[in-house]
């Protein structure tokens, strides 16, 4: 394994970046793709797909469920914006195509990681810090 792409769609994912980077051996290149600006990720390459600040993760209550489903279908959620902007960015597409491991660090990053299946036929695409740490530990 030579390159890892870490996707953080919210501040929750961004908070986990440091812990993941700590687990990654020095000879592996790490690129962090963030849904917005503001998070500190020292010592790694970072690509921001939006100039607005990263948002915290939003839990959908039962009351908001219908509105949320509509927003997902219309592509109006934070996750949809991250997915759209990420796929539009040539730099992000390039790193996803060449990655050996793609990691979604929060739920809002999963749709972009899921779409990345078509960009990269061989990369492992994993959900969450735990699975990612295990994968880099076992390389």
């Amino acid at each position, binding site marked *: 394994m030579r390159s890892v792409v870490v996707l953080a769609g919210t501040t929750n994912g961004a908070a986990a970046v440091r812990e993941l980077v700590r*687990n990654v051996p020095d000879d592996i290149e790490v690129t962090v793709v963030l849904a917005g600006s503001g998070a500190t990720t020292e010592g790694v390459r970072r690509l921001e797909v939006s100039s607005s600040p990263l948002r915290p993760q939003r839990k959908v209550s039962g009351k908001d469920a219908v509105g949320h489903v509509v927003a*997902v279908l219309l592509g109006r959620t934070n996750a949809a914006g991250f997915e759209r902007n990420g796929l539009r960015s040539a730099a992000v597409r390039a790193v996803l195509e060449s990655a050996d491991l793609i990691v979604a660090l929060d739920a809002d990053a999963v749709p972009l990681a899921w779409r990345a*299946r078509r960009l990269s036929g061989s990369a*492992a695409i994993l959900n969450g810090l*735990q699975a990612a740490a295990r994968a880099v530990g076992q390389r």
Partner: protein
Amino acid sequence: MTQPHLLYVAWGYPPCRGGGVYRALATANAFARSGWRVTVLTADRDTFDRYTGTDPSLESRIDPDITVMRVPFEWPAQDADIRTYSWLRAQLPQAWHRWRGLLDRRSFPERGYGPWRGPLERAARSIHAADPVDLVVSTANPYVTFTAADALAKDGVPYVLDYRDAWTLDVFSGRTLTGRWSRIGRWEQRLLAGAREVWFVNEPIRDWHAARYREVADRMHVVANGWDPDLLRSEDRSPATGRSEAAEIAGVDEPPRPRFGYVGTMTRMVPLTELIDGWELAKRNGSLPTGATLSLAGYLGYFAVPDPQMLATIERGRSFGVSYDGPIAKNDVGAYYADVDVLVLALGAGRYVTSGKVFEYLATGLPIVSVHDPRNAAATVLRGYPLWVPTDATDAAAVAVALGRGWQLARGADPSLAAVALEFAEQFRRDRQFAPRLRALSDISPARQGTSG
């Protein structure tokens, strides 16, 4: 064969790491050492590698006469391979998890674990067919392990349910989780009615169940967790002074550098923020010497990778001498205690909450500072321990005062008090907790059991 055959069922068993595993390990070993032939039914090794993390040192502690049978365990909700995800799971994860939860509970009402019922029952029946079982001990949680006992009960095999905590009681809030006539409630009533014995980790939890199921109350017993004598050797310990080894040898006076320690799994129920705030306050107001350090060891959260939010909380205390030292293998825990002057017992709130580590702490003979709700069941275990510093609240001010008192006790380093403390701990040895139950079950013999599935 003259030895009775025990089928011991536990999801978490070595090399799984985590609080409940030590009890599972000790229970099976206790039966094996008391003359039972023991077969352990547990999840496969890969389950622990993938989800909980492992402590390989624990496997060497399994009694060599025990047969371990591992049953594959699937946990789709924890599946991390996004390539296998459906559109629904990727785009609407909450809806997918809700659907998955319903699916999980189809055969047994327990999210995540319900689907294990089928493989578990089949495995139990096959063991019984090959080598008739005389007693089943099923350990929660998860509660799906009780279904293996239920499956063999149809063939007349008696069973013990080791609840440890509670299925229908939230031990942190004290809230009843389900009614007696809910699906879980009906399972619980039926399982309890047929049980030879039911075990709990402490008296408050036993009492709650005894009041709810009066008809079974006389079969309900407390089997406290206790501490393992082979892991903690008292000769490793010496009274604490907070001075470095070099200074001790040279007889030089140097500023004290007491080391406080916490070891155990830290979940979000543990008042970590209050502990760090209290530590900072104690350092600032001089209750603790400037050189004092606080080492936090163990897993952060239930899973193999540290919980980032908890890591961030610990990071905040770094400039005040707080460090996170990661998980410690059970075999190395004695060495960790030997290097600590004062132990910190931080636990979630609730009168039903004990822990395994309180017993281990007692066995060290070191001062113990409590950072938990004073009504917590752990307090009843600690009452009478001469080096215990209780807190009347878990806010930063109260924690700071308690930490300061802990340091005073360590600085006093009265060997006679330490001896009394060690003597006090003897009653909580793990083998002493099992002894009455093993005696009570000694009437079970292979001759009593005639059927073989």
